[in-house]
């Protein structure tokens, strides 16, 4: 089956349109997630889709997979229009999705994962394991994939799992495979391996949609690229007719700054990292934060930003080098140590690390300062606890029916404010914020900017880690860029070189410094 299909596809002309989406619109209460989007993919092409978080990529892909229903617009595959699309219809039409976190049967072998639900049987009706292994091995070989099919999937590397997931899609007659950030957790060698596998499948006539923040990779592997911004398709270009700066320009657009804060930076240095290195994570990190300064830090996944933040908060090893907070050596073994040393961290994954969702707002706000709320015999003092909670609900404008509300019942923005309250309660000298505006609505975003401004005005030094470059520009006195484990660039408001295009270029590994 598979063979026949792929061969047939190869014979057809390459520039034939495989997928044609026209005038797709989708709105959620208060948000226009997709507006009149036209998107098409040619047979056997690798088509990049780029755009910032929230640009509409995932909504567009959701519509394509049949998970979300578009309000209007049409989808045609091979010129045949599909009306009410369901996930099953899209699968049958040959559209497959390979998520960033691959979902396979980890304890079972590669062979069994390939043939699950349909294992070859001998004449007694029993599973023929030799055939299972031979058959799956042969299938993989036809795709040029060399894996030990008798190995359990849990022993495979991430790249191998991704390729296996692609292979499984192909065995199910997929003709268009959506790859969602497939290289996020891969080392360079593995990326090459994956790319050559993807190219080999492309030559057989399979089309790919390649979603990535790594523009360099988009240029490396894609034939065409579509840029999305604010729920609209900005444009689709042949990759040979565009360069990185232009692509970034399309992603960023010419819109005006929505938010611009003044500076509150003092002169005194409160945080300093000197020659901080950890093998495989980051190297020779040197930077300082001054009192009341807001500094942005941006980098791709794998650039070392995440590891640096986690290590500074005591969740991972810090490595060699020196960190000083207000002149005192700082080397936390645990978040508790970090709090005590005057540093607090707002995690990117609010659900996993930020909040204890089952517990009420009051408890979440005061977790970090329980020590200060106990009397000599270890009893929690209700009054100060109430006061602290009420004060922060008031100050940060947390919308909740009361301090006893379970935090899981709050909206994303208000949940984030609860995390802010928990951190602010420790009265940190240094506050690291990891994607503070992710998954919150517009109003909450403005509120969070104001909270950041307030904290800075109180003298807290803030390090804001974000991929939302435009937000960083409005917010920060300086922006640092990390690439491949090093701080490679610095932009300052004073030098007036904080341009989104330049910063994005630096994030992608290019020379973005205006003065350079």
């Amino acid at each position, binding site marked *: 089956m598979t063979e026949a299909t792929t061969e047939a596809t190869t014979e057809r002309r390459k520039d034939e349109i495989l997928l044609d989406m026209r005038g797709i619109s989708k709105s959620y209460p208060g948000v226009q997630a997709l507006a009149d989007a036209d998107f098409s993919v040619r047979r056997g092409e690798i088509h990049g889709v780029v755009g910032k978080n929230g640009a509409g990529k995932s909504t567009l892909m959701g519509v394509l997979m049949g998970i979300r229903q578009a309000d209007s617009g049409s989808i045609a595959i091979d010129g045949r229009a599909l009306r009410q699309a369901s996930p099953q219809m899209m699968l049958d039409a040959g559209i497959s999705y390979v998520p960033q976190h691959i979902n396979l049967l980890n304890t079972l072998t590669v062979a069994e994962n390939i043939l699950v639900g349909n294992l070859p049987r001998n004449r007694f009706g029993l599973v023929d394991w030799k055939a299972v292994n031979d058959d799956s091995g042969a299938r993989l070989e036809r795709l040029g994939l060399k894996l030990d099919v008798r190995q359990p999937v849990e022993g495979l590397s991430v790249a191998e799992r991704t390729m296996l997931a692609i292979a499984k899609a192909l065995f199910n007659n997929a003709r268009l495979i959506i790859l969602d950030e497939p290289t996020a957790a891969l080392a360079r060698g593995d990326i090459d391996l994956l790319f050559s596998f993807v190219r080999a499948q492309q030559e057989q006539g399979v089309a790919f949609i390649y979603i990535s923040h790594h523009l360099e990779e988009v240029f490396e592997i894609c034939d065409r690229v579509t840029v999305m911004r604010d729920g609209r398709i900005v444009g689709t270009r042949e990759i040979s007719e565009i360069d990185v700066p232009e692509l970034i320009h399309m992603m960023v657009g010419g819109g005006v700054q929505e938010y611009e804060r003044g500076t509150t930076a003092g002169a005194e240095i409160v945080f300093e990292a000197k020659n901080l290195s950890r093998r495989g994570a980051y190297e020779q990190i040197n930077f300082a934060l001054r009192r009341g300064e807001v500094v942005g830090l941006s980098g791709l996944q794998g650039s070392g930003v995440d590891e640096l933040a986690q290590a500074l908060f005591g969740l991972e090893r810090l490595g060699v080098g020196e960190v000083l907070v207000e002149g005192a050596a700082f080397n936390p073994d645990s978040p508790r140590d970090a709090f005590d040393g005057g540093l607090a961290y707002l995690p990117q994954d609010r659900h996993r690390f930020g909040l*204890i969702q089952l517990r009420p707002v009051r408890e979440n706000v005061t977790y970090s300062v329980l020590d200060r709320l106990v009397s000599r015999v270890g009893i929690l003092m209700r009054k100060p606890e109430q006061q602290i909670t009420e004060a922060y609900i008031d100050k940060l404008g947390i919308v909740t029916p009361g301090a006893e509300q379970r935090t899981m019942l709050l909206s994303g923005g208000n949940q984030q404010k609860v995390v802010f309250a928990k951190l602010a309660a420790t009265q940190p000298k240094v506050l690291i914020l990891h994607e503070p505006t992710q998954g919150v609505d517009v109003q909450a975003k403005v509120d969070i900017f104001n909270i950041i401004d307030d904290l800075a005005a109180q003298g807290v030094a803030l390090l804001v880690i974000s991929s939302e470059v435009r937000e960083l520009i409005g917010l920060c006195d300086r922006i640092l860029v990390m690439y491949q484990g090093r701080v490679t660039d610095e932009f300052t408001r004073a030098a007036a070189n904080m341009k989104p295009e330049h910063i994005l270029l630096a994030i992608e590994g290019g020379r973005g410094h205006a003065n350079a």
Partner: protein
Amino acid sequence: MQTLDRHHLFEFVSRHFIWVVLIATVLVFGLTIDGYLRISNITNILITGSVLGVMVIGQALCLMARKLDLSAEGTVSLVAVTAAWLMLPYRETDLAQAGGLGIELDPLLVIPLILLLGTAIGFVNGFMIMKLNMNFFIVTLAMQLVLRGLALAISSGAIMPGTPAAFNWLGGGRVAGIPVSVIATIGLYAVFGFVMSRMQFGRKVYAVGANEDAARASGFNPARTVILVYMVSGFLAALAGWMLLGRLEASVPNLGVGITLNVVAAAVIGGVSLKGGEGSIIGAFAGVLFLAMVNNALNLMNVDPLWVNAVRGLIILVALVIDAQKSRYRGRAGPAEPKVKTGAKAKQTAALS
């Protein structure tokens, strides 16, 4: 907005569900069974509920920390046997009875010793689970086998009767006509109710049970908290063993066998979630009262004692089915964000095949 209100109503009812059931039970039994509300009968209910009650506290703490302690009943039998062994005079073991080691230790020395033993067992459990990353279910299961085996080996599986009066005071004594075991149990509930709601330790247990990662990122030390929880569980199991031995005035083989299942059931009926981070000590108390009341009523109603277990099991089953409906409802009307996420994930998975 309307769903939000319904949600609040639901939260309220589900949080206090056990009390509604308890009041209904009292009313129904009180009206239909002669002498149910007599002081002597109420005392009876409380006495039979006391050992179970003490163990439920420890298990509730474990459940709140998203763990389980299957070894508690093993601790009960081991400490009971050890205590009898240390206190009783030596005698040849015959078919029916065994004697002690012969050192005839003073009960006042034995009591702290067995409490220490229970706590130490809890520490070993906690250490293996949190420091050696061993699975809590299997660790406590294996520990249960070890402890019960040790208890049987020490006692040769025979009865060891005649524990000293000073030792029996907790399980069998009375103060002003009120059984000491009842006073002690109620006292323990008061203490642990306070600890869990008003002290730092309680706060940490709930936090660690609800979300270990976030608890660590909030500055807690989950390993330390969980080890402490197991130590408390071991201590309380030892206390329950002391109480039970004192009531029976003899160590019998298979003391406490199968009680773990009752204990878990009481805690869960009392609203302590198996998924951690939820429930209250006072709710667990209600669960214990409920089970004790049902047992007692079945007795008074002249239900064949042989059928009591079956009826009790059925009641637990009904409670569980209701509880499952509760979490289903929560799944629908609950927090939009996480649910949507899992839904989308499942669908993406569907798209993958």
